[in-house]
């Protein structure tokens, strides 16, 4: 096992490169992904190495990007589309919701549309409007899409390759605020496959216990996993043992893994940047109440964004779930 230390963004680059290397039908499309290497440089160097026909600078039209990617997929290609920022995915929303998500079903399984939509998402980078949003719930509610977000460089590498290998479309949310946080990556790791059973090493469909604990379960994914881990650290100092579950996937949700943890801890706080109102935390709260009704010592609490447009950069740290807000929620859960 040869591991390398690299930032999460570069692990994604490595995943893309590995997929381009392994399979000629893989191609990347998006705005400014060629010579520029993308505004976050995630595709840096790939056009030079794989050519303009496999790393394609597209016209400035997100519906066109996803719509033509669907057509390419119908012809046998595996397009990976980059949406430049979260807030710019909505022009493609119709193609994603009514076409990409449904074509496999519409065709009675005859058509597969293995399209990956990469979206640098989430806040904390001091950006202007539309550059910091977390739209996962808006995709996960629609059947036919997988919606995932990695929290570590290794998962970023593994999940990107798994997403590209997946016959189903994948909304791949890249926690841009964590692009530069580093971790070990085993570049020789096999491409994970999607499995029918929980408990298998399938990062597109199963959660991961990121830290074991006994008193409260913190559930997070993507950018908030680090927040939850920091909170767990702080809680440990106060003598509270928090288990941290990294969901990795919002659709499907690995409820068994979370429920298993909550049955042991009796308390749960879900942390995501997206607004709490109708967010993934709501679904998890509803499911956990169903699955662990008699184990819950307190209601599942949510720490998320507010029901307001993502605020100006000067206020984003008030809006985002902070370690302190997680601790506050844990306090409330513990004192129930």
């Amino acid at each position, binding site marked *: 096992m040869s591991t390398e230390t690299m930032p999460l963004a570069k692990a994604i680059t490595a995943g893309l490169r590995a997929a381009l290397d392994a399979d000629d039908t893989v191609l990347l499309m998006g705005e400014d992904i060629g010579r520029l290497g993308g505004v976050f440089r995630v595709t840096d160097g790939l056009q030079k190495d794989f050519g303009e026909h496999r790393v394609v600078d597209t016209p400035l*039209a997100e519906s066109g990007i996803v*719509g033509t990617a*669907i057509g*390419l997929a*119908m012809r046998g*290609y595996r397009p990976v589309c980059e949406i430049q920022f979260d807030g710019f995915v909505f022009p493609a929303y119709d193609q994603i919701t009514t076409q990409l998500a449904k074509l496999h079903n519409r065709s009675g399984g005859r058509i597969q549309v293995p399209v990956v939509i990469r979206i640098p998402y989430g806040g904390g980078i001091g950006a202007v409007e539309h550059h910091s949003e977390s739209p996962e719930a808006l995709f996960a509610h629609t059947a036919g899409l997988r919606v995932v977000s990695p929290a570590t460089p290794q998962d970023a590498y593994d999940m990107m390759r798994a997403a590209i290998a997946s016959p189903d479309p994948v909304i791949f949310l890249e926690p841009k605020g964590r692009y530069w946080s580093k971790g070990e990556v085993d570049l020789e790791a096999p491409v994970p496959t999607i499995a029918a059973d929980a408990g298998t090493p399938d990062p597109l*469909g199963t959660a991961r216990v990121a830290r074991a604990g006994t008193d409260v379960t913190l559930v997070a994914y993507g950018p908030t996993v680090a927040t939850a881990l920091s909170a767990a650290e702080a809680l440990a100092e106060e003598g509270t043992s928090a288990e941290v579950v990294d969901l990795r996937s919002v659709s*499907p949700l690995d409820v068994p893994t979370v429920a298993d943890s909550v049955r042991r801890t009796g308390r749960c706080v879900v942390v995501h940047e997206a607004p709490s109102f109708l967010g993934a935390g709501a679904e998890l709260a509803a499911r956990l109440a169903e699955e662990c009704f008699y184990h819950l010592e307190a209601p599942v609490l949510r720490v998320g964004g507010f029901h307001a447009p993502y605020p100006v950069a000067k206020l984003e740290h008030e809006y985002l779930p902070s370690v302190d807000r997680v601790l506050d929620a844990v306090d409330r859960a513990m004192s129930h």
Partner: protein
Amino acid sequence: MPHQANAGSVGESADVTPLVQLVTPTGERVHEPDNAGDRPGYAARVAHLGADDLRAMYRDMVLTRRFDDEATALQRHGELALYAQSTGQEAAQVGPAHALAPQDMVFPSYREHGILHVRGVDPVDRLRLYRGQDHGGWDPAEHNVSLYTLVIGSHVLHATGYAMGVQRDGAVGTGDPARDTAVVACFGDGATSQGDVSEALVFAAVNDAPVVFWCQNNQWAISEPTTRQSSAPLYRRGEGFGVPGVRVDGNDVLACYAVMAEALERAHAGHGPTFVEAYTYRMGAHTTSDDPTRYRERAEEEYWRRRDPIERLAALLRAEGHWDEQWAADLAAEADALGESLRAGVRALGAPETTSMFDHVYATPHAQVTAEREWFETYESETGDAAEVAR
């Protein structure tokens, strides 16, 4: 309708409506001059079509019309939920379909029954969607015809992307007629307003994608006349994107064949996309749910009834001595047989399995679907056939 060759040239003023026509409404041939360039003119592109070819086209148009009538009747008898007729547009569908190579790929909207017929898609399969039986109905790979697309304009981007895939496969510009592949996107006048259609023109043009934008201007988008969609003739829509355009008489099957043949030639050769406006008329209602008396004049319908594309081809066949009463009688019998087998086939379609709604949501296991399917199966087995429960 004046004939004018070289219809798509940029030099024409917007007020003229040049129209490629090879047969007049009364069935006379139009012998246009050859194009100025080095490519053959439109008349030359149909010169090789003999009596059998013309009769084959006629047959396909008649069978398409019969399919329409039968499907409409099936809807009236409650066997279909809905149906969208192609009546009046048979020339604009059968003509281009005859020009296609087998490997060419067609992306229909929901009204291209003539194209689906010529491509060989099973008639019963073509009604599964309209019966509320299936969201699709056939295998796109079998006849190189994609599925109906109901969200207006979406599939025009798919066609363009597919054509970009064709390019990457090296299946354009090889000169091998069995290999060079074009893609056809079918859509209506109303669809031209959708952003997706314009974006498809952008992507097709900058990539020189081998796609033909086949726009049937049947003059109505449900109740809205084309003047609500565009103040310029539609064949010009592509020009400002870099996609040349041509307007063809959509009720003239030979002209439609010729214009499509030219567009395919461009595509196959790797010279890029073409936008065709086939100027025709939706003789019937938008769908079986529609009532056109609310929004259009009977006189207009009458005018177009006298320009029926099937009658025009019949007139040509007669004028050129290709009409044969025995053949016509055989065709009528064939149409009857089609009607009968369609009725029987549609009626024989049972209801799908209730659990099939969980099929093919994903190609791989998905915990949410698995859990809900399991719940549903238990629930169904416990409560008996849930389908019987009234809401």
